[in-house]
């Protein structure tokens, strides 16, 4: 990712200038010499006003997400792979096979082209891993001081196979809650390099496309009821939403949560709860108890599901609420986070 070098036609300006968003020759050069080479094999752009796609059969899933992360580069990833994986994962959480993504950039005047080049390469690499094509895009430039370097929006289309019916309302009393991997890594990795908060850590973002894992889970033939990728607001927000939408209570056992020691230590220092910290490469699955073992075994056989664990169940008590059994044996309600996570004063 660090290997990006500025191609000859772009060398007049090593940073973004307003002209790059003009739609004129400079815009064209940016696409031709920066984005398309960066995207590599994942790019399928014919430079028309819209991508023209072959007919698809089956139900379509369609999703969009915008990415405004700061800093742009963090341990284990950057805004580029996040933007691809984020939309891929949103599609996968409805059981869809992601196929096509659009990419739209809002670039701040003065942003180094080398940064954008690295981001484009990361997007190409992530799309390659996920097996999706980047088929259309857009670039706008805003004045210096009016953006954080690079904002990206991606939208994506996927196809849902017959027989797959995954949505939050299907969570039912007696269902089992499975998480696919360790929680809290992404949020802590990003926080560890925020200005004023730099702390030494080996924690890397878990940013990854989850469509392969979902395919493995569906291949068991199990009737998966709900999938969620617990991004902003963490596992707590995802399970609260499911509880509220499905009208069930959710109980989890803190002792069973896969939390790396480095994440729990960082959270202790900052006064944060790992349940509220963002993830970008894990999912929460809700399945019938009779099928939980089969789904869990399939997840654990996949590279991204090795640490998968059963963390709780859906219950008839306290509908709409998430309740955690503490390590000491007490209970606590885990509510939706109100706004931003704020490190405590002391």
């Amino acid at each position, binding site marked *: 990712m660090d290997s990006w070098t500025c191609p000859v036609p772009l060398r007049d300006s090593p940073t973004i200038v307003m002209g790059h968003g003009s739609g004129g020759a400079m815009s064209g050069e940016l696409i031709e010499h920066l984005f398309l080479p960066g995207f590599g094999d994942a790019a399928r752009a014919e430079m028309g006003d819209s991508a023209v796609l072959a007919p698809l059969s089956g139900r379509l899933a369609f999703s969009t997400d915008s990415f405004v992360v700061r800093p742009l580069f963090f341990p284990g990833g950057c805004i580029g792979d996040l933007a691809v994986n984020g939309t891929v994962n949103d599609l996968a959480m409805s059981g869809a096979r992601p196929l096509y993504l659009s990419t739209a950039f809002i670039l701040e005047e003065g942003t180094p082209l080398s940064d954008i080049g690295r981001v484009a390469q990361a997007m190409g690499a992530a799309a390659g891993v996920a097996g999706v094509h980047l088929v259309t895009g857009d670039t706008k430039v805003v004045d210096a001081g009016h953006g954080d370097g690079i904002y990206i929006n991606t939208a994506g289309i996927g196809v849902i196979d017959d027989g797959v019916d995954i949505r939050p309302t299907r969570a039912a009393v007696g269902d089992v809650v499975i998480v696919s991997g360790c929680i809290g890594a992404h949020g802590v990795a990003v926080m560890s390099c925020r200005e*004023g*908060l730099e702390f030494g850590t080996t924690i890397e973002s878990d940013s990854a496309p989850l469509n392969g894992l979902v395919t493995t889970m569906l291949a068991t033939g199990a009737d998966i009821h709900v999938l969620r990728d617990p991004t902003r607001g963490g596992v707590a927000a995802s399970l609260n939403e499911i509880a509220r939408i499905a009208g069930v209570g959710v109980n989890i056992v803190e*002792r069973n949560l896969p939390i790396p*020691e480095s994440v*729990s*230590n960082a959270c*202790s220092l900052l*006064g944060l709860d790992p349940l509220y910290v963002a993830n970008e490469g894990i999912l929460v699955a809700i399945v019938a108890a009779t099928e939980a073992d089969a789904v869990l075994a399939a997840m654990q056989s996949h590279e991204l599901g090795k640490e998968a664990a059963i963390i709780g169940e859906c219950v008839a008590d*306290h509908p709409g*609420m998430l*309740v955690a059994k*503490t*390590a*000491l*044996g*007490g*209970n*606590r*309600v*885990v*509510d939706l986070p*109100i*706004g*931003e996570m*704020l*490190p*405590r*004063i*002391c």
Partner: protein
Amino acid sequence: MKYLEEFSDPELARRLLDSIREVATRPWAIMEVCGGQTHSIIRHGIDQLLPNEIEMIHGPGCPVCVTPLEVIDRALAIAALPDVIFCSFGDMLRVPGSSADLFRIKSAGGDVRVVYSPLDALTLARENPDKQVVFFGIGFETTAPANAMTVYQAKRLGIRNYSLLVSHVLVPPAISAIMESPQCRVQGFLAAGHVCSVMGTGEYPALAEKYRVPIVVTGFEPLDILAGIRRTVMQLENGRHEVENAYPRAVTDEGNTAAIAMLRDVFEVTDRSWRGIGMIPGSGWRLSDKYREFDAEARFDVGGIHTVESTLCRSGEVLQGLIKPHECAAFGKQCTPRNPLGATMVSSEGACAAYYLYRRLELTAASHA
């Protein structure tokens, strides 16, 4: 990491709980002074696991909660000024003043920044010589040394565009105020471990003697808290009232002497209002004459802002341990973490927020029963 996981070991916690159950023969009411301890007690469900004889009363040691409304209003007035960079710890941003909070000032164009160390604010002052940089210096003896350091450094380095909005409060006078209250039910104290790691334990024997209460310096992890409770109960059962240190890995009798010397240089004792409690004589610090030029209240002339508290909010009684959060009529109704009437509902260390977040289950069950 050492000293975190070891101090939440469930098996050792069970043994401590058994031991507390053995020694407690009568009902005892114990106050944990510090909001961090309140949070830990509720977060781990410790109060549910204690024998019925032991009642934990949640004390006034949440710095966000006891900062008076008018100080928040002064902060908001300063933060809204052009050419001011207003720096604060994160959890002060959501605390409501009488008409807004710092988040709203920020969205209206105020330059409000969350910093993780007060020294970051000083760095901002050096990097932005054409701006006035203000740090919101609140809290107990724990946060005071780093705040004092900024002013000390600013004077030494001649950084004129830095100032501190000071609302520091002190634990020992608060213990006195609680014990002097006619409705006081507190029979023993868990003293705040981190306050004592700065100040040492020297201020407490006189209080233990005067009010005949055991005071046990206690840490924040589950085992720390259980050990502190156990020692307090043993003293109560034996009719003793001594100062004990149950947090020796962080607290020495003499405290952090370098920090204390800096505090004596930079601050002087003053009367302070506590949100919900009112004026407690000699219960706070302000900048000493030598450093008065760095006082943001004087620099921005906001000392005249005076505000009256909401009459619905009973956070004062909560902070003094006179009622439990859910015994307030507004709890969970007019007053929620989203629309807090008082700061005890805002801060993650506040007793009302802790109850709301972690205890709603049993409170809901109880109200339906």
